[in-house]
């Protein structure tokens, strides 16, 4: 269902259970709609898509109908996805000060936390929160840990963390409350690079333990 939000935005919400197949349709639609006349931004969320338009160049009612129709005609057909992206992670140590806490919380050894975290295949659902930051689906449920009661004021870019049922990589230095289990030297955001973000919605991500 598509609804209007303020003067310059419309939102498509894929109703029903959260699903990867709906998210595949969102990715395809975000790419297409981003090129429609008058559309300034097409931003995927979790099973939703927001279009921000310039009211001088696009008519909201027309866009709503166009988006509704495009959604109904879209399919989750598996598209040519990129090769999985490997993120080398140095687990524990200075870059992963909360590894011991996560292990204790999960009732397993640090080594097993690392093995489980690196064994999974993660899907990039969408980017947001900070430049280049990817919302990843696929965390082993046994690795879920609460966020820190007191967020850290400064987390370095490249820090790999777990917060609730999410895992991810801080793409730029920022404050944050996730439990940090490791660090990667890969740049998730580099404005001099095109595209500036390493990850794209739909990418498959694997973490690889390095020493």
């Amino acid at each position, binding site marked *: 269902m598509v*609804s209007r939000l*303020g003067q310059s935005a419309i939102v498509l919400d894929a109703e029903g259970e959260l699903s990867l197949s709906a998210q595949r349709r969102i990715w395809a639609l975000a790419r297409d709609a981003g090129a429609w006349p008058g559309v300034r931004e097409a931003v995927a*969320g979790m099973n939703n898509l927001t279009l921000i338009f310039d009211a001088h160049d696009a008519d909201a009612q027309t866009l709503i109908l166009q988006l509704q129709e495009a959604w109904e005609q879209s399919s989750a057909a598996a598209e040519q996805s990129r090769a999985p992206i490997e993120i080398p992670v140095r687990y524990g140590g200075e870059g992963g000060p909360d590894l011991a806490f996560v292990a204790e919380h999960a009732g397993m050894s640090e080594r097993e936390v690392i093995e489980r975290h690196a064994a999974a295949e993660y899907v990039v659902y969408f980017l*947001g929160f*900070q430049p280049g930051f990817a919302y990843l689906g696929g965390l082993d449920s046994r690795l879920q840990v609460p966020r820190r009661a007191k967020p850290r004021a400064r987390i370095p870019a490249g820090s790999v963390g777990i917060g609730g049922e999410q895992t991810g990589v801080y793409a730029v230095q920022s404050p944050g409350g996730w439990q940090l289990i490791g660090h990667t030297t890969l740049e998730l955001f580099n404005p001099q690079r095109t595209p500036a973000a390493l990850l794209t919605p739909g990418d498959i991500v694997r973490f690889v333990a390095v020493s």
Partner: protein
Amino acid sequence: MSANEIVVIRPGPRALVVDRGRFGYMGIGVSWCGAADSLALDVANRILGNDAAAAALEIAFGGASIRFTQRTRFALAGADCPASLNGESISTWAAYEASPGATLELGMPPRAVRTILAVGGGIDVPTVMNSRTTDLAARIGGLNGRVLEAGDRVPIAATGVAQDARALLVEPPRWWTRDAQETEIGVIPGGELTSFSEEAQERLWRTRWRVSPQSNRMASVLEGEALDTRGAPELRSHAVVPGIVQVPPSGLPLVLLCDAQTTGGYPKIGVVAEADLWKLAQAQPGAHVRFAAMTLDEAASALRAIEAYLAAIAAGAVQA
């Protein structure tokens, strides 16, 4: 020959390079940023005959001292700080010409927060992802992606002195001439508003909200009697834009501003009319605001009035 630049002697509490914003990258998590009061930026650029995309300095809470190194035309708009050029008092919403070595001093603004200092031709820092504006989260744009510091030399365009002088002093947008105890902010109802209890909805419109000192370029944070959020649904993460009014679990609404992150999950009760958003960016901590429901037609009409005002400045018709 000296370089084309201005020198920051004192930046005040917070000053940074801004333009209209960095658009087209929300999908990779990059916020628009830009001037918190984009109307003041538009006015300053138009007074000088600059391109609308030209970058300027946004100086919060005054307290700044800037030295010019060559003959430079400049304009001030936005928060009406006491201002002087080489000790001589000057006005906001006006353009002046500084001689080489001249110093501009800005005091604390008695009301409002942000003053735009624009120069003829614009601030000439490199563009990053199609914009010169500072993004403090991404650490890009502006001067090395950060706020200005004492001693910074900020490059300006070589065309420092415009041939066409345009209006010297313009009428400010009407809000600035008011003497009101509170600012009315138009809000287009939407989002999850109707999931809130009737009492919470009624309180939203009735409350005289106070702007919290926690407010910044990311959000205008409001204080008052909290809204009951029990009816509000849990939402999946979705895109958010400046102007959205969110109600976090505290029950105290906040209005997203230019530096807001690109995605969020709090319930929304509507979006501030685009013609009114800058007023929140200018509301000082402790100032009072009241939300007033507005239709899309009314909001569009308010925006057209601003566009007409800006067009009249460009045509030299709004001289004070």
